[in-house]
């Protein structure tokens, strides 16, 4: 691959290109003779451009977290490709994948459950360096201390145990641990969902600051569309394993095209009592991914569904520059 400057590369080629990603789980059916399949992620394609934040939004069960984990092969994808700087991560052997894992890191919702309760924070931070065989013990400790400062903690936190930290501090550790290897892409899976609103704003601000300083690219997965809007350059909306709409953030909010996006936006409670609005009421629950509806997966709950929606699966089309939607009615 020829050497290109990062800015040029951003316009020419995405840092990560996801093509037709599928992740199916086998589920035991009601009868021993019938095996059924859960299509958690069902043919998702998108680009992650260098330096941007791509927000992935959807309700629980839509497959957004599975998608994030599949990209790092924390769960093996069923089909599709993930081209990181032109190299398909899904085709790498376990050993060669190791090198790429340095450049793609992940932050989870609950860092407490990913930290060993009996291990001091500093050791947990150094672990990625040990795994990748980087530096001497002294250098690793220095690097861990440096990371603590970077994420707004103090060096003394190196000696703390996870239970001694607050939720916000633990998420800072989660970030420090992901960033200690100098990754280029950070997959953030609901990083602020478990936090109180003030702490949430502190972490969102920190993530934006780190992104600018360390030139990071984020895949920001969350269900809270207000938070996603605040941090993302582009947003993809997922429903039952599929991307139903994708657009630059301002375009998506100015002109949401897919009925599901419209419903989602209207359901968010607005913190302004004088501005109570009419909601687009949504009937019923998310259908079971074990038995997804035919045609457009959203037709069972869509206020505008027609006969065609029940039978024919809509194809994703560009409805405006950089704005894609999969709906028959557009």
């Amino acid at each position, binding site marked *: 691959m020829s050497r290109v400057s990062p800015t040029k590369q951003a316009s020419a080629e995405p840092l990560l290109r996801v093509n037709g990603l599928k992740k199916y789980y086998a589920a035991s059916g009601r009868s021993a003779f019938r095996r059924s399949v859960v299509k958690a992620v069902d043919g998702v394609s998108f680009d992650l451009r260098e330096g941007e934040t791509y927000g992935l939004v959807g309700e629980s069960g839509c497959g957004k977290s599975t998608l994030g984990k599949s990209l790092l092969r924390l769960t093996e994808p069923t089909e599709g490709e993930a081209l990181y700087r032109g190299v398909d991560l899904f085709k790498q052997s376990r050993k060669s994948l190791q090198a790429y894992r340095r450049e793609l890191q992940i932050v989870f919702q609950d860092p407490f459950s990913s930290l060993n309760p009996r291990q001091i924070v500093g050791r947990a931070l150094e672990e990625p360096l040990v795994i990748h065989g980087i530096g001497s013990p002294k250098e690793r400790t220095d690097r861990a201390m440096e990371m603590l400062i970077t994420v707004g903690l103090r060096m003394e936190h190196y000696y703390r145990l996870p239970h001694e930290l607050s939720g916000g501090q633990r998420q800072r550790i989660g970030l420090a641990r992901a960033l200690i290897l100098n990754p280029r892409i950070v997959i953030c899976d609901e990083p602020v969902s478990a936090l109180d609103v003030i702490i949430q704003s502190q972490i969102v601000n920190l993530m934006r600051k780190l992104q600018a300083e360390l030139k990071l690219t984020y895949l920001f997965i969350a269900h809270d569309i207000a938070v996603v809007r605040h941090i993302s350059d582009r947003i993809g909306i997922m429903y039952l394993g599929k991307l139903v709409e994708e657009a630059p953030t301002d375009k998506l909010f100015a002109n949401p095209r897919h009925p599901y996006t419209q419903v989602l936006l209207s359901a*968010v409670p607005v913190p302004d009592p004088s501005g*109570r609005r009419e909601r687009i009421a949504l009937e019923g629950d*998310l259908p079971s991914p074990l038995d997804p509806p035919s045609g457009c997966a959203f037709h069972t709950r869509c206020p505008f569904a027609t006969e065609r929606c029940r039978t024919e699966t809509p194809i994703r089309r560009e409805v405006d520059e950089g704005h894609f939607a999969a709906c028959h009615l557009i």
Partner: protein
Amino acid sequence: MSAEPILQINELKTHFHTERGRVTPVDGVSLEVGRGEIVGIVGESGCGKSATAQSVLRLFDEKRLASYEGEIRFGGRDLLGLTPKQMRGVRGNEISMIFQDPLSSLNPVYTIGGQIVETLRLHRPIGRKEAAAKAIELLRLTGIPAPERRAREYPHQLSGGMRQRVMIAIALACEPRLLIADEPTTALDVTIQAQILELIQDLNRRLGMSVMLITHDLGVVAETCSRVVVMYLGQVVESGDVRDVFKAPLHPYTIGLMKAVPRLDGDRKQELPDVPGSVPPLHQIPQGCRFAPRCAFADDKCRSAMPELAALPGSDTRVRCWHAGRIAGTED
């Protein structure tokens, strides 16, 4: 006496006796819920909003863990003065409560219908058949489709939103005068949350049931409540009409909470303004005003003396801050 509130809490203190000594998660809380009113209680985790709600029903273990001071007036008597037996007649009957996680509140081995019947027959002298018919009617009231079939199902067969509807049906079984809803939609997706909030508002209007709604989400308060109570570290720091408080919050904590929420119509390029630090643990309560260490307005007075919860002249909003007048712009 229609002006008398249905619930009036006066200087309530709830003490927990722990291994590290006594802590007071509810420390002098006064608030009221009017008849037919929905009152929102907001604050971050650890500010005592759930502890206040659970104190109203005296859910804490009074033999070993907890003790109460103050007064909780409901229906002409002080709930803190009732015997355990009298209190059982209040819970689920006159005051009902729903929680964040309906699955852990429902019994997995009994049918949905059976659990509603149990509540009904505990408080009312009615027969099995009549109770079963009432249970189906309640499920229908909360918008559950095919209630006859659902009544025979078990909790695991229902989705999260459906389970919360079942909890509401159980809570409504004895036509309580007050419903305490503790983060009822926090575990739900936003489209399901909208449905449940709609249901609570609808029941409030149709049945005239008062609601105490505990939430951390200011959007939920703005859309469903008529009054709001903001709590910080076991105390009420501000309370008033929802429109007044959202339009002109007076306590620096309320201001901080409101600014920290990203809004769908806000400026994306701006940093979210945040309040430094986090809620301290209960055994490290600061001197003076409890919010002082995190407050941009704090001065020596704030750090030494606790302000009272009081209304400013010409305002209905009550606020616990030495600088409220300056924040409201009525004094320098």
